[in-house]
């Protein structure tokens, strides 16, 4: 396969998780399924490899990592720090810089005035930069805490810087120690990065296309908070929750929680200068929720139905229950006019997905089959009445 340092999300699924990471591949798959996803591109493992080759010519540093004793915390800390600063600090190969900058510039020239896209007065589009790990299966979970997300990054130099920070996160002490314990070869370690336009949601959260409580496949469980989903993911705010039937469309459970705090993305707010520290939010503000909104549900019934419709499409596309991150915008995705249309179809146009992955908890459980056919249909009834108390 020819070397490509960036691929659009639309092409990411085709490129494969091995080259663009799981997150980008899954977003690409969503695009393929016709689901609205904030536009973006993936910086591939090829870019990572080129950058690493420049940062660690000859691979001497990586070889010294492989030589580390997993129990030698001090040694790990020392070598990892050197690798991190090399990855974060070394000059990027010109081709990588050019590819990322060009793709980012293409964003900024197309539709930065769009209502659902955030940008600074300079014309640069605000983006989220997220690491997209290439490790397989359950191991990803072990890396989850080590991966970085930078919100509200603006301007090509800042984007490039954030990309390098994502890469460097592979060499966190914990990450290195984890690989040493499993004796994973450093040559197999790679990190792709997703660069995506920022959205400023009215509400955001997660949803599962089967009940996380009972495993019921006929319902969709939705949790949401005002503003960014980070307040929910971090556990800072107890989300509102709903259960909606896939077949009936009936909302069978509603719980509105007091949502004391709200994380918002302010497109025109002051940038954290010069660049955010690793893991710190970009132009994200954390504030007390206005009193009128605190105990108000963060989704209307129409929005709940719209989310459910999108969730069903995604589940059908994957053929398995999904664990989805979503956001609901003020205006139809990609349109400049805020507010305007109502109704569930219109609500669906305001839904974007930020992530979808297979549900793993119930998938791993041994769920007892609900029943099996018998010789005659009536035998089911005979069995019911024949069962001892």
């Amino acid at each position, binding site marked *: 396969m020819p070397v490509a340092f960036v691929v659009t999300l639309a092409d990411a699924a085709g490129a494969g998780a091995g080259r663009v990471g799981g997150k980008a591949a899954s977003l690409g798959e969503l695009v393929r399924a016709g689901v609205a996803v904030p536009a973006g591109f993936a910086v591939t493992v090829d870019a990572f490899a080129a950058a690493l080759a420049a940062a660690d010519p000859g691979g001497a540093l990586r070889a010294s990592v492989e030589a580390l004793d997993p129990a030698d915390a001090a040694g790990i800390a020392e070598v990892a720090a050197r690798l991190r600063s090399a990855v974060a600090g070394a000059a990027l190969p010109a081709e990588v810089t050019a590819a990322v900058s060009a793709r980012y510039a293409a964003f900024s020239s197309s539709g930065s005035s769009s209502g659902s896209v955030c940008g600074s007065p300079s014309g640069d589009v605000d983006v989220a930069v997220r690491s997209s790990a290439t490790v397989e299966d359950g191991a990803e979970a072990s890396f989850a805490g080590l991966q970085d997300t930078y919100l509200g990054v603006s301007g090509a130099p800042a984007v490039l810087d954030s990309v390098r920070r994502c890469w460097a996160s592979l060499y966190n002490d914990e990450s290195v120690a984890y690989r040493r314990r499993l004796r994973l070869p450093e040559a197999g370690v790679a990190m792709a990065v997703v660069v995506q336009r920022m959205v400023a949601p009215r509400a955001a959260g997660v949803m599962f296309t089967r*009940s996380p409580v*009972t*495993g*019921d*496949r*006929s*319902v969709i469980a939705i949790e949401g908070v005002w503003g960014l989903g980070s307040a929910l993911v971090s556990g800072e705010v107890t989300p509102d929750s709903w*259960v909606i*039937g*896939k*077949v*009936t469309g*009936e*909302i*069978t*459970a509603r719980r509105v929680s007091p949502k004391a705090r709200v994380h918002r993305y302010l497109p025109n707010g002051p940038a954290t200068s010069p660049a955010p520290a690793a893991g710190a939010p970009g132009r994200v503000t954390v504030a007390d929720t206005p009193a009128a909104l605190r105990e108000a549900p963060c989704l209307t019934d129409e929005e709940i139905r719209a989310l459910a419709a999108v969730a069903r499409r995604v589940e059908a596309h994957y053929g398995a229950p999904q664990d989805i991150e979503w956001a609901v915008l003020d205006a139809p995705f990609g349109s400049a006019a805020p507010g305007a249309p109502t109704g569930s179809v219109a609500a669906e146009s305001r839904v974007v997905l930020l992530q979808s992955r297979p549900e793993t908890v119930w998938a791993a459980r041994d769920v*007892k*089959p*609900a*029943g*099996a*056919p*018998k010789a*005659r*249909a*009536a035998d*089911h*009834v*005979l*069995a*019911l*009445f*024949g*069962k*001892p*108390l």
Partner: protein
Amino acid sequence: MTEQAGFPLPSQIADVPGAENWRSMYQYFTRFQPDDDKRFWFYNSMHFPEPMPAFDTITGEIPYQAIGANTARLFVFPTTLGIEHRIVNGRVYITANPVLEAAEIERRAAEFGPRAGYYFENWDSLYEGWKGRLRALISEIESVSVPELPEWEPSEAVFSAAGVAQNHYLHENFHRVLALYSTMWHHHTEMLMLGYGAYVVFFQFCQQAWPEIGDQTVARMVAGIDVIMYRPDDELKALARLAVSLGVDDLFTDGCAAADVLAALETRGTAGAQWLAAFDKARDPWFHVSSGDGFYHHHLSWNDDLTVPFTALPGYVAAVRAGGIAPRPTARLVEERDRIASEYRALLPTGDEKAAFDQMLGLCRLVFPFVEDHKFYCEHWFTTRFFQKVKEFGSLLARAGVLAEADDVFHLHHTEIDQALADVSLAWAAGSPPLGGPHFQPLVAERKRMLSVLKDWSPPAALGPVPEALNDPAVRMLWGITAERIEAWLNPSADEVVGVAASAGVAEGTARVLSDVSEISQLREGEILVVPVTAPSWAPVFAKIRAAVSDIGGSMSHAAIVAREYGMPAVVGCGDATKRIRTGDRIRVDGDRGTVRVLSD
């Protein structure tokens, strides 16, 4: 079974002050016995939400003979014998007799399999035969005559050597009426227990496959669209159309009285006569719909009291004039039912589960026409005729001076009616006045007084020790009594009425509590109907209301099915909604959770 604090024991129930003599109304075999304290009993509010008039105890006495005979003796259900009932303070408590010993269950199962299998295998043809037998029973009860007891027998009685005088037929015909009622109940249970069994296995399967599925959703997959219960309402709509096309529609105005309209139609020439002919045709059998489930004599049918049809007709006439009444969208309803079933089926992960689903749903749809339509034949058509016939005997007793009025016959147990008939027969034969007046009239007056006192008693939901396990399929099937339900009885919510979530959605509005369908004219557009029970005779009111709440009924009950079709929230089987909610209360009906909340004003 372990003892657990919670429900009182039967022996701990005190007589209601002012009605201490309630036992005099009921038979000895309905009394709680000392040993009954060891068993778990629950109040059968589903069928008997009011204190029992003495005659109406026959609606327990006969059905429990029939049900037990069916399960214990006829089909030999392996785990269930019959149901015992007791009356305390006028209320009916029941308990099921389970079979617990494994060897005995096995012995019974060997008999049950072929017997039940035969009915399922031949269901459709058996049901056809069943309908014929029920129609024959109905014709027979309609034809039973109540002797006139003339001064002299007609001379033909002599010339034809009849040899038997009319007073003999007092007994024979009254016993015939009782016997027909018993026969009807045996046929009622003949296919019903097995039919409900098909429902139960499908409900259990669905709950296993989709733990969060609501009963109403399962019911929607099963529901038949073309069932008899819609017919009475459809007949009214047809009569409204006819009134408009014949030009007699001006007579149907809001608040019109049936008698006035019928009298006016007599003066309207051919058109009036034509409408009246169509009306008479529709009345038999389609107006034999009880306002209840046929368990009380005062649950009158449309034919007994024309208020309901004549309250609904003006609205239908206005709708016809305004462009017609849309027929029930049966094709769309069938399509929606099939969509729901096939989408749930598609959610099943394995082919085996899909195959089991197909078998069980198929069986439900096979039994559905019987399970749904038997009520019209039994509880409505036959039972309306039954109570009418008993009332004719009441008229005879009133004419003879034994009773003050015909309806008082329902305050005598059928064995007491036998005594009264013996009295009348003896008196007629002897040429003397009957002696029953001073005996029965004070007794009836006292019983009516006691019933009005007992009406205010709140019966405990259950009595006796809570069983460790309560999964008798028959009990679960007929009464929805589960461990969860018992738990809810023990810990009632103060401000919430809890029932069965019967039709999805949430609605707020003003409550209109009606104790009987005859009060239907009080109902205003957009109110929430709160009633003891609904039956097909209530169907026309659903066009007017925003939501429905009932004391009695399950997810397959009439209110539930009609509410789902209208797409309005409904909570049924609340037990005491009509007591806890008042007309004018602002209430919130949550048809998803099965709760009704009285909102503070």
